[in-house]
């Protein structure tokens, strides 16, 4: 699958970002979000709002702390969720956190995404090639 980078313009500054559409499935249906493909992030992180929106059971959720560059910390819940990209479905844990609702994009990271896909970034062409890992 080839995905073009997404040009996001904020105040006239255009930034091309490696962003993909990811679908999450839950008891209340599915939601599609755009997420940044970030090979440097340890774990996929998405908005905490998706828990309620998808109706995900939180009984076995594990409270975790997330930390990024600069040491800014936040809290989140680690939950298994069904992901979908194109025709590919897989189950993996993702961190649902409210830190996504302030400054950061949602992130597809090493655990939860890169362990399932081989990703080639073609920055000069502003394209990503994503294939199921074999």
């Amino acid at each position, binding site marked *: 699958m080839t995905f073009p980078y997404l040009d996001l313009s904020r105040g006239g500054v255009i930034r091309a970002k490696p962003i993909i559409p990811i679908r999450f499935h839950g008891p209340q249906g599915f939601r599609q979000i755009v997420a940044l493909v970030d090979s440097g992030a340890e774990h996929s992180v998405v908005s905490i709002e998706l828990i309620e929106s998808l109706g995900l059971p939180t009984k076995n959720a594990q409270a975790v702390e997330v930390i990024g560059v600069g040491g800014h910390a936040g809290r989140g819940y680690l939950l298994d969720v069904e992901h979908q990209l194109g025709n590919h479905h897989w189950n993996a844990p993702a961190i649902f956190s409210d830190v996504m609702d302030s400054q*950061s994009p949602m992130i597809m990271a090493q655990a939860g995404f890169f362990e399932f896909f081989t990703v080639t970034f073609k920055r000069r062409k502003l394209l990503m090639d994503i294939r199921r890992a074999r």
Partner: protein
Amino acid sequence: MSRNARPKKKSPLPIRPRIDVSAFRGEWIALDPETYKILGHGPSLEEARRNTPNLHVMEPLMHFVPRSDAFFIGGAP
């Protein structure tokens, strides 16, 4: 290459979508999954989703627009 062999056609590159999100800082926006056109917006994921026309026939692509213009330098925050 034989005389009758046709050169392989390169498949066209996908069109790179461009979205101006400057008016929606700190909000969720709902995008058409095919065209990436902004269809609706709101302060929460569900409100933005509900503000999308034709929700009964098409599930929009949701995107949260960060409040800040700061450069994102990777890793979960």
